């Protein structure tokens, strides 16, 4: 999935820029290459440029600079209706004056397909999303989840090789959303479709995708498989945006063998962290540690590990885990998650504890 060789790239963005007003760039120097069959999610806060990228790929927006290629061919000058890309819209965009079956037959009719062949394909597409009995209904007579399925079926019925989805599950309730997440990924893999999925929901991005492109400020901050994104964020935006994260600020004192020794602000203590995004001693840095990688039991740490004193502010019992809020080096929102196991002590507010971690779990990122 990670093969980015130019020969088998199916979708390519090359140095793409987009500006709506000719002054500010909404998308800045975007480079992306997707192999066939990949499920790629564009994730980012609103205004990060992810939807603009999707719209440029669909042909509804034109790139100000750069080239977008589909299957090796530049598509900048091809109008949207000739690109043959399936699309699922945020609000489904089903045609309200047509029945479900007519909605699905529309792209086939446009392609000049005969009535009997059309009927067969529509039926298969409806069965695929378990909506076989609803062909005669109008969209207004369907629930949100059902409309979502029809929108999906309509985007797939003409067998496009590339399907774009623009926050398709945003309007559904949590349970339905989780179910549809599963169903969309299953369909995409079964049919071998290349999918570009846009969302601002990181859980959705992590559970569905082969790779996730994290957008911020018009750039891809990191493009990686979900596990890598969570465990090895390349900069502090990604660390902060994906999952729960603890941040401590400080100055790099020493840099050797890929390990940075850092003096934290608001404390005299020194800690060690994996140097990811720092260049030299004296740089300011943000240190990122996942709450579940913080160790509260000193026995389990290496003998020479640096430890910090922390004051317990809040202890929340969540069943399978304990969630503890600590004050560490001036940061009052330092979260520690511990498994509810017989040998793990429950902490009480006001108590002072020693915490530590393995240097490789702690990443020194840009300030």
């Amino acid at each position, binding site marked *: 999935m990670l093969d980015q060789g130019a020969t088998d790239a199916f979708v390519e963005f090359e140095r793409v820029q987009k500006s709506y007003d000719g002054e500010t760039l909404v998308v800045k120097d975007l480079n992306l290459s997707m192999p066939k069959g990949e499920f790629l999610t564009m994730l980012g806060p609103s205004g990060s440029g992810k939807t603009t990228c999707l719209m440029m790929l*669909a*042909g*509804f927006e034109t790139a100000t600079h750069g080239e977008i290629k589909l299957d090796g061919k530049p598509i900048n000058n091809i*109008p*949207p*209706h*000739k690109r*043959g*890309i*399936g*699309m699922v*819209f*945020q*609000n489904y*965009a*089903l*045609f*309200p*004056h047509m029945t479900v079956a007519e909605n699905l037959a*529309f*792209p086939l009719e*446009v*392609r000049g397909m005969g009535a009997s062949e059309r009927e067969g394909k529509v039926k298969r597409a409806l069965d695929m999303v378990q909506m076989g009995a609803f062909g005669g209904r*109008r*969209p*207004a*007579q369907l629930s949100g989840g059902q409309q979502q399925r029809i929108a999906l079926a*309509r*985007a797939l019925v*003409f067998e496009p090789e590339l399907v*774009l989805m623009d926050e398709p599950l945003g309007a559904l309730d949590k349970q339905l959303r989780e179910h549809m997440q599963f169903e969309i990924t299953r369909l995409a893999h079964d049919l071998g479709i290349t999918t570009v999925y846009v969302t601002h929901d990181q859980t959705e991005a992590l559970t569905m995708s082969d790779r996730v492109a994290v957008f911020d400020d018009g750039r891809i901050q990191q493009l990686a498989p979900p596990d890598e994104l969570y465990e090895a964020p390349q900069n502090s935006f990604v660390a902060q945006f994906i999952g729960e994260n603890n941040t401590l600020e400080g100055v790099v004192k020493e840099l050797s063998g890929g390990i940075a020794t850092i003096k934290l602000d608001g404390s005299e203590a020194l800690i060690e962290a994996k140097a990811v995004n720092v260049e030299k001693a004296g740089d300011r840095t943000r240190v990122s540690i996942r709450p579940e990688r913080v160790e509260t039991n000193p026995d389990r740490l290496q003998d020479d590990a640096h430890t910090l004193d922390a004051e317990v502010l809040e202890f929340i019992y969540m069943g399978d885990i304990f969630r503890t809020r600590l004050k560490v080096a001036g940061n009052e929102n330092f979260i520690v998650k511990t498994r509810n196991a017989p040998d793990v002590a429950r902490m009480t507010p006001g108590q002072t504890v020693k915490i530590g971690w393995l240097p490789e779990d702690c990443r020194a990122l840009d300030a």
Partner: protein
Amino acid sequence: MVTLPPYATTGQRIWFYAFRVICGLIFFFLIAPIVVIMPLSFNAENFFTFTPEMLSFDPDGYSLKHYRDFFGTSDWQQALRNSVSIAPVATLLSVSFGTLAAIGLSSEHVPFRRAIMAVLISPMIVPLIISAAGMYFFYSRIGLQGTYFGVVLAHAALGIPFVIITVTATLVGFDRSLTRASASLGADPVRTFFKVQMPLILPGVISGALFAFITSFDEVVVVLFVGSAGQKTLPWQMFIGLREQISPTILAVATMLVIISIALLTTVEILRRRSERLRGMSPG
């Protein structure tokens, strides 16, 4: 039916009934002049007032002579033919141009949208006599004054604002992502317009068409200026009838026009509701 709540004060009771009386009076004020011409059009005499025979419901007091007059006089028949040949063509032009203008003006990238919109709907706001005089001088220059096509164009210009306004109102509720969806499914812009956009804005187009038609059918000022004797329309003939002949035939014509208008309104409203149901706005 709204009823008074048991805790209503005397003041509220008085207002409750006064409000209904006022509404009734307004309704009467609007309808009475139209209702009163209907029985008068069956007057057996050449008068504009109720004769004693009519008031005593004597059958001899009533007749269809004014209707016969309308159908038997070549002036009236020519006027009817003129109206019927001008109004539909003017409506067709108004609807085509008005709909296109409304769609164009509702897309965000058109510069000076508000200014253009103001110019296009100005015929509705500028006093008719001024438009008429302006059109007269302009059309004379380019040889359209006194021609059938000139009157059609003038009426189309008067009808366009109505179409623009009704279609723009429908477009507000039109979801732009539908045209994008249509494009993503492979439909070119023309197909998208006829298969997706047009069916959905049809209620607005129909209402606009009705207004444009009535405008042309009712119009007397502009046609007096722009038309010549060859384009004498029904309202023009009625105007002459009032001024020169003082014949109750115009009452017969008026009655027929009222009935046609009601029939037209009803048909259009049924059509509009039907297409609104089709676009899934109200439960069907």
